[in-house]
């Protein structure tokens, strides 16, 4: 931006405001109410991960930009989320201006712990307005807060708010529009020796003088490993920090705990003056009573399994209807184009490439929406933290902790939301392991593949038999995911014991509006991906399966695909897949479904020149069953069918997941590693089924 002497034009941002707070303090609700911008509201710690900004207007109509910082307990960073919050406040996140004022949201019903972050913020020398949120809950719990005393002790404006009811927003707007906004004058008093070292270090830091003390204090409180990991400072600064830490330790002050103790001591004084407890503990006791059931030794499991079962029942039943509509709509559109357009390559590109490809992915939108509806409710109510609490022991057996359970669970619908949900995992290694194994959980895109293979395997199977085979595939996915997590934790990311510190927020009523907003946001995100990555890949795959064209214009579609690049590639990989009992035609299916596993079914229809390829899978099933090798042996023996299912349980085969892993890990290294290990695992699994089965005398 070029500096200008003129008055700010109407609508130009005059002030950058950041909104910060602990997880579960209602920060996001206040953000939404101020900006009107739709955003996630949740109860599960650390729900806010993306950068969210919105515009709002001060009491004189001046435009302000509001930045929603990820919820964090401390500026001492542990998760990627918390790093974002700290870097913004220190003004060192590229492209994000250091805020002019921070709205620090605190949960009035959990004041003491919430004030810890405030204490740290006060050390940053940025003007602060404290939004004392959920004062209604606090009041109901018998907590009386003396506002005047709190204002005096904190030395900054304190505005009582009820985010969900819109109480206090006018005052909040006024408070942040006030000019000038003085920086806070009070903060926790550090021991003298520590203060001296902090100031000495601050003078060496190449940062703006107003943030130097805050940053120096953060550096001094870092443990050894974290100091080593710092990339944004010179070695000299790190060495100076270490030297200062050693001097402090020698003088009997632990640099890691002394500032924390000092802040809590100060909070103690603030609370002694401003916080009065007593009276009824309404909400808390309701929460406690609910927990005595929901985390009960027996009923806790019953409730947990019941909730999970209900969720998946809805995903696979309620979502069926809209999925059917999407299916008929895409098929109708393709038929319409086939009707109206001459038989050219362009028509093929549109119908077989674009519509079939994108339609095949969009069809999963209803399932993803239902999943997000449930996850949203579980987050908003606070049950997510309980799920992590219940599952932690099991997860710890493979070296992960309870927080990894939610991403794994979400991956049963689709790995993309699952991998996005790993952002709440503080430990980087844990997060990576969770990302690496999440796609092993059987997602809904595998269902069409399982369904056709089960139909080929057992055409006359009863519903129970089908469900049994389907379930064992899901179980295999579970076992593989947990087994690989164990292997990775044991060998790839050794020597790291994750720590679990989980806040269990009180149960709250979910807001339907918030949940629906989140579904909508996530749905859009998914569609955008389908519209870009998947569209591009569908076109590429269509081209591979179409060109070069056979010289004979009368060639059948299956002859054409055999002649195409895809067909040639199928032949090329035949030696690789022969030990699995597959021929080159199945090879085409494997290659074509590399981008999206459900494409397998459609590709096999083309390969075997089956006319109808929609809901009715019988023609394809019968053709596949009748398919013979050159020597007359059937291709789809039971072992091949089972092996193929196992292959699809274990193989990556999803380009959207690759794209999201690339984004979340910020490198190509992990997605490539993931493709390699999962494909290897899939090949091995199918090999064991086929060759092992033959050794045992099966077909």
């Amino acid at each position: 931006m070029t500096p200008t002497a003129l008055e700010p034009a109407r609508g130009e941002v005059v002030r950058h405001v950041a909104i910060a707070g602990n997880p579960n303090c209602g920060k996001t609700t206040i953000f939404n109410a101020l900006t009107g911008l739709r955003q996630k509201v949740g109860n599960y710690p650390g729900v806010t991960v993306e950068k969210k900004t919105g515009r709002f207007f001060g009491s004189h109509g001046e435009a302000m930009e509001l930045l929603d910082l990820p919820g964090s307990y401390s500026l001492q960073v542990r998760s990627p989320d918390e790093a974002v919050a700290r870097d913004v406040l220190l003004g060192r996140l590229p492209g994000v201006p250091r805020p002019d004022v921070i709205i620090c949201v605190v949960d009035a019903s959990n004041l003491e712990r919430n004030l810890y972050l405030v204490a740290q913020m006060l050390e940053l020398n940025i003007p602060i307005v404290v939004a004392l949120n959920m004062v209604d809950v606090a009041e109901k719990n018998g907590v009386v807060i003396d506002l005047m005393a709190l204002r005096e002790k904190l030395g900054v404006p304190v505005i009582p708010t009820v985010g969900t009811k819109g109480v206090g927003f006018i005052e909040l707007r006024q408070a942040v529009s006030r000019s000038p906004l003085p920086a806070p004058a009070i903060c926790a008093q550090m021991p003298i020796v520590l203060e001296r070292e902090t100031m000495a270090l601050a003078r060496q830091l190449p940062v703006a003088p107003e943030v130097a003390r805050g940053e120096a204090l953060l550096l001094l409180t870092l443990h050894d490993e974290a100091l080593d990991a710092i990339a944004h400072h010179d070695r000299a600064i790190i060495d100076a920090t270490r030297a200062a830490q050693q001097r402090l330790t020698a003088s009997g002050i632990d640099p890691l705990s002394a500032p924390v103790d000092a802040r809590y001591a100060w909070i103690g004084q603030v609370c002694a003056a401003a916080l009065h407890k007593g009276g009824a503990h309404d909400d808390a006791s309701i929460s406690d009573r609910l927990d005595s059931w929901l985390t009960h030794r027996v009923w806790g499991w019953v409730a947990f399994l019941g909730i999970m079962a209900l969720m998946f029942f809805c995903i696979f039943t309620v979502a069926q209807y809209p999925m059917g509509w999407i299916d008929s709509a895409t098929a109708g559109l393709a038929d319409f184009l086939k009707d109206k357009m001459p038989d050219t390559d362009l028509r093929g590109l549109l119908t077989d490439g674009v519509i079939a490809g994108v339609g095949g992915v969009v069809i999963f939108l209803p399932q993803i929406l239902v999943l997000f509806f449930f996850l949203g409710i579980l987050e908003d109510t606070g049950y997510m933290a309980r799920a992590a609490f219940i599952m932690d022991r099991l997860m710890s057996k493979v070296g992960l902790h309870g927080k990894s359970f939610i991403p794994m669970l979400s991956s049963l619908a689709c790995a993309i939301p699952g991998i996005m949900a790993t952002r709440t995992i503080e430990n980087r290694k844990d997060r990576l392991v969770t990302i690496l194994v999440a796609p092993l959980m059987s997602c809904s895109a595998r269902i069409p593949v399982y369904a056709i293979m089960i139909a080929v395997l057992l055409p006359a199977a009863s519903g129970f038999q089908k469900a049994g085979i389907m379930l064992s595939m899901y179980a295999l996915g579970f076992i593989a995911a947990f087994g690989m997590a164990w292997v990775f934790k044991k060998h790839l990311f050794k020597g790291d014991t994750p720590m679990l510190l989980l806040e269990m927020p009180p149960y709250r009523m979910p807001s339907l509006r918030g949940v629906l907003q989140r579904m909508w946001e996530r749905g859009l995100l998914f569609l955008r991906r389908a519209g870009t990555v998947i569209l591009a890949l569908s076109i590429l795959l269509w081209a591979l399966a179409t060109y070069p064209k056979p010289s004979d214009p009368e060639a059948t579609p299956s002859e054409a695909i055999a002649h195409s690049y895809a067909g040639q590639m199928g032949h090329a990989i035949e030696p690789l897949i022969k030990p699995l009992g597959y021929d080159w035609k199945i090879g085409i299916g494997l290659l074509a479904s590399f981008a999206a596993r459900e494409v397998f079914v459609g590709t096999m229809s083309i390969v075997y020149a089956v006319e109808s390829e929609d809901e009715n899978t019988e023609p394809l099933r019968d053709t596949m069953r009748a398919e013979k090798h050159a020597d007359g042996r059937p291709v789809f023996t039971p072992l091949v069918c089972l092996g193929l299912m196992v292959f699809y349980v274990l193989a990556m085969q999803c380009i959207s997941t690759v794209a999201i892993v690339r984004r979340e890990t910020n490198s190509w290294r992990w997605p490539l590693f993931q493709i390699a290990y999962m494909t290897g695992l899939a090949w091995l699994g199918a090999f064991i089924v086929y060759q092992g089965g033959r050794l045992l005398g099966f077909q």
Partner: protein
Amino acid sequence: MTAEAGDVLSALQIGEKARVLGFELPPEHRQRLLEMGLTVGAEFEVVRFAPMGDPIDIKVRGYHLSLRKKEASGVRVARL
């Protein structure tokens, strides 16, 4: 560990109240517990155990925090 210094958090029963005396934990873990309000001198109550016996849910500074037995065994406490 220094068992003679008193009890550890993981040895407490449901409903027992105690005060934190100190930590036998790696610095990073100790710091996280401190920041969550489990400072030396802080009083807390053991509320419940997860269905499989671990982690432990405690109430400290008016809110619920759960931690694993492994870390809890490094928190020295005095029963109240």
